[in-house]
C-alpha cells in the first residue's frame, strides 16, 4: 500500500501551517520529513493517519493494505504513549484485544522477541528506560502489522546514545521486513541514516522546499555528511528565524 498526499493545506485559526503539500510515500521505503520547528510536520503526520482533518487537499491510500494488517496506518509517538498500568506484554495486548485472533499470545511473543523485549514482558513502564519504552511502542506498532508506520519524532525524547542504538534497531527491523514509514524528525542525522527520501519543509506555512533522494542502501550508510550539510544549508536561515519567533 502507498500513500499519496495531494494539495494538503491546513490552518489553525489565522495561521496557515501547511500550504499545498503534495507527496508520495512509496511502499517499502522510509520517507523522512524534516523542517524547522513549527513547520507543520507533526500536523502533516496526524493528517496522514486520519487523526486530524485537513482544511483542503486529500490523503489517499493507493492499493489495499496487505492481508492480515489489523491497523494499516500505525503511529509511533514521541512520548511513547504507553499505559502505565499495564506491563509490557499488556501494552502490546491492548491493541490486539479488539480483534479476534486465535494466536494473540504468539503474536505478542513474536513482536517482543523481534524488539528484544522478551525478558521484560512483565515489567511496568515506570521500570523501563526511555529507550526500552520506545522499543515497547515499536513492538506494539509491529503487532498490528501496519502497512505504513507513522513515526512522530520517535527518538527525540531519548539521549544520544540510546538514539544511536535504536536507529540500529530500526535499520535491522527494516532490513528484515521492508516496512513503509513516514518518519518525522528535526534531527538531520536521523533523517540521513534512515531515510530513502528526505522531504524538507519550509517554515510556516509549511511548503515542500526540496525532496532529497538518498540511494545508498540503508545498511551501509555512514554519517552522510555531505547530504546532512546540504539539508542544513536548506534549513539554516529558516531554523534561525523560527527560533527567534514568539509562540503564536
Amino acid at each position, binding site marked *: 500500500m502507498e500513500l499519496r498526499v495531494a494539495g494538503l493545506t491546513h490552518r489553525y485559526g489565522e495561521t496557515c501551517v501547511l500550504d499545498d503539500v503534495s507527496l508520495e510515500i512509496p511502499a517499502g521505503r522510509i520517507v523522512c520529513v524534516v523542517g524547522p520547528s513549527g513547520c507543520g510536520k507533526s500536523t502533516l503526520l496526524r493528517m496522514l*493517519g486520519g487523526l486530524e482533518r485537513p482544511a483542503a487537499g486529500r490523503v489517499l491510500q493507493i492499493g489495499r493494505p496487505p492481508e492480515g494488517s489489523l491497523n494499516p496506518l500505525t*503511529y509511533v509517538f514521541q512520548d511513547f504513549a504507553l*499505559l*502505565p498500568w*499495564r506491563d509490557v506484554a499488556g501494552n502490546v495486548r*491492548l491493541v490486539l484485544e*479488539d480483534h479476534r485472533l486465535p494466536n494473540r499470545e504468539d503474536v505478542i511473543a513474536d513482536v517482543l522477541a523481534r524488539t528484544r523485549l522478551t525478558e521484560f514482558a512483565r515489567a511496568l513502564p*515506570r521500570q523501563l528506560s526511555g529507550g526500552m519504552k520506545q522499543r515497547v511502542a515499536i513492538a506494539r506498532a509491529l503487532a498490528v502489522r501496519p502497512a505504513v508506520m507513522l513515526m512522530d519524532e520517535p527518538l527525540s525524547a531519548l539521549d544520544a546514545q540510546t538514539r544511536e542504538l535504536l536507529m540500529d534497531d530500526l535499520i535491522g527491523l527494516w532490513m528484515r521486513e521492508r516496512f513503509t514509514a513516514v518518519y518525522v524528525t528535526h534531527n538531520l542525522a536521523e533523517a540521513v541514516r534512515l531515510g530513502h527520501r528526505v522531504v524538507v519543509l519550509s517554515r510556516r506555512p509549511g511548503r515542500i522546499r526540496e525532496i532529497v533522494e538518498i540511494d545508498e542502501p540503508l545498511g551501509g550508510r555512514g554519517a552522510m555528511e555531505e547530504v546532512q550539510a546540504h539539508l542544513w544549508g536548506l534549513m539554516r536561515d529558516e531554523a534561525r528565524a523560527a527560533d527567534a519567533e514568539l509562540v503564536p
Partner: protein
Amino acid sequence: MTDTTHSPHGARSAQTDGSARPVPFRGGGFRPATNRWAGPLVFALLIAFVEVGLRAGWISNLTLPLPSDVLATFVQLYETGLLWRHLVPSLTRFMVGGTLGALAGIGVGTLIGLFGLARAGLVPMVAALFPVPKIALLPLFVIWFGIGEGSKYALIALGTFTPMVVATYGAVDNVDRTLIRMGQSFGLSWGSIVRKIVLPGAMPGILSGLRIGLAIAIILLVAAEMLGAQYGIGAYILEAGSLYDLERLFAGVAILSVLGVATSAAVAWVERRVLRWRS
C-alpha cells in the same frame, strides 16, 4: 583574609588558607517522614490526659466522661449483644447507600467527562446540589421512599453521589490526552478506550473522591438515624445525648471514629492494590 579574594587567584588561596569546611546541606525538609507510632501515641496521650485530669479533679466531671468508664460501657454494650443490634443496621445502610451513591457518581461523572452535552446539562445541577445540606432533604425523602430504610439509603447515596461526580469528571478531564489519541490511532473501539484507558487513568482521582464521599456518607448515616431509627449508631448516640449519658455518648462517637478510620484504611488498601503501577 587579605585582599586575595579580589584577585583571580582568590579561589586557590581560599583553598590553601586552611579554613576548609564542608558545604552546608540545604536540601532537607518538605518531605514528611512516615512514623507509624505517632498517630496512636497522640490518641493514647490525649486519653491519658483526660483520665488523669478527671481523677485528679482539675477537669470537671460534667464536661467529659472517664475514658475507663467509656470503655466499660463499650464492653457492656458488646456483652449484651446490643452492639451488633446497632452496628449491623448502620453498616448495612452505610454500605448500600454508599455503594449506590459511589457507582452512580462514577457513572455520571464519566458521562460529564466524556460528553459535552452531559457536561453542559449536568454540571450546573451538580453545582446546585453540592452545597445543599442533604439532611434538610430527609423529610422529602421520607415522603418519596418511605419512613423505613429507603429514605436512609437515598440520603446516604445522595451525599456520596455529589463529591464522587465532581471527583470523577475532574479525573476524567485529567487523563493523558496522548493516551486517548494513541487508542484512537490503533482503531480501538469507543468502549475499549473508556474501559481500558479513561477509567484506569481516572482511577487515582476517583479513589481520592471516594475518601471524601464515604466520610460524608458516615455523617449522613448518623444524621438520618438520629431523625428516625430505632436501632443504629445514630439512634444510640441520640438516646444517650438526650439522657446526658456521657459514657454512652462517647462510646457511640468512638464507634463512629473507628468506622471512619476503617473506611479510610480500606480505601488506602484498594489504592495500594489498584494503583500499584504508580511509583
